[in-house]
């Protein structure tokens, strides 16, 4: 089975380890594809990032370019989105603020809304958000790193909100993506363990597997076709 890690940071932005180290660890843990989704920190650094990712080749591991957007306002998010959308395969927006969560699910250019519960006491999603997410085909991302780095009450609250979001995604038939969100090679985990964590939140094993296999593959393939000019939004050349 081919496993995908949809969000990995490197030292090209906020990560600690180099792209080569992260790629080697991912291969050792059994991933077949990783998405290097470094944080957007201006266009110049973004261009440098794209060049660096192209240079690295690891046998038996596919490396895909992505970007993570962390915006304080909706306008900032939309501005960055228009600059990066046609350059990478996966666009991830970090959620948390309700206005951002809502704007993300309303914008079909985004692929994944990551951690909509982050920094909140509620789950960060309401019925309107879920309807828009379904309509626009936006996946909800669950990142493992904040769980790993939090303890006791914080972790318990995060688990509670993730569990609520997974249940809502199941009810509304919204796709879920699981990823390590690793900033160093020590944050990475075996993909089967991430499936087990999703399973312990109440997601059935099949959905847990598709969060790390089928769903990321669908997103990458869709964007690969769009970037190659073989498809536009809503239509495809057969």
């Amino acid at each position, binding site marked *: 089975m081919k496993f995908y890690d949809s969000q990995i940071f490197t030292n090209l932005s906020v990560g600690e380890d180099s792209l080569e180290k992260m790629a080697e660890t991912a291969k050792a843990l059994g991933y077949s594809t990783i998405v290097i989704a470094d944080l957007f920190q201006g266009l110049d650094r973004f261009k440098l990032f794209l060049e660096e990712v192209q240079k690295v080749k690891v046998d038996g591991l596919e490396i895909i370019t992505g970007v993570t957007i962390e915006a304080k306002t909706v306008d900032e998010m939309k501005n960055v989105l228009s600059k990066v959308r046609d350059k990478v395969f996966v666009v991830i927006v970090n959620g948390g603020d309700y206005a951002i969560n809502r704007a993300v699910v309303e914008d079909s250019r985004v692929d994944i809304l990551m951690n909509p519960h982050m920094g909140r006491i509620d789950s960060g999603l309401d019925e309107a958000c879920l309807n828009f997410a379904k309509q626009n085909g936006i996946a909800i991302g669950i990142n493992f790193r904040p769980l790993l780095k939090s303890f006791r009450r914080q972790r318990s609250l995060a688990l509670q909100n993730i569990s609520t979001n997974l249940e809502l995604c199941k009810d509304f038939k919204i796709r879920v993506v699981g990823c390590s969100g690793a900033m160093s090679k020590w944050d990475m985990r075996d993909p*089967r363990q991430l499936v087990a964590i999703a399973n312990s939140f109440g997601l059935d094993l099949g959905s847990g597997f598709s969060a790390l296999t089928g769903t990321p593959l669908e997103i990458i393939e869709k964007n690969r076709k769009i970037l190659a000019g073989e498809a536009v939004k809503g239509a495809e050349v057969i």
Partner: protein
Amino acid sequence: MPERRPNILSSSLRYKKRYIAYKIICDKDMEFSELSNAMWHSILDYLGEKFAAEARVWILKSTFDPKTRTGLIRTSHIGTENVRAALSFVQKVKDEKVIVQVLGVSGTIKAANQKFFGHRDLRSFS
């Protein structure tokens, strides 16, 4: 006078065991006791005392190989997924960063040794 022990229950009355094979990814050698402490800490933190008891976790000292940093953990068949999840929260063993990679799950120690650690017995050569 030798201590009296209860007779062993018939197999249908015993709980179903599973053995989780793991490998530690780290830069330095470690002792089993340190690793066992870190694992127990993580399991109790994530599952709590009640679910750890239900999972019947036992970290087997005799199966730990310090050279390859591999070993087995015994659980009940219903606790396997939860223990696998809990092991991913092990971050450090005595201030050294580690990753606990689960290699797989097996029903017996013998099968786990053959499947994950490449052990061979004489029958495999015939």
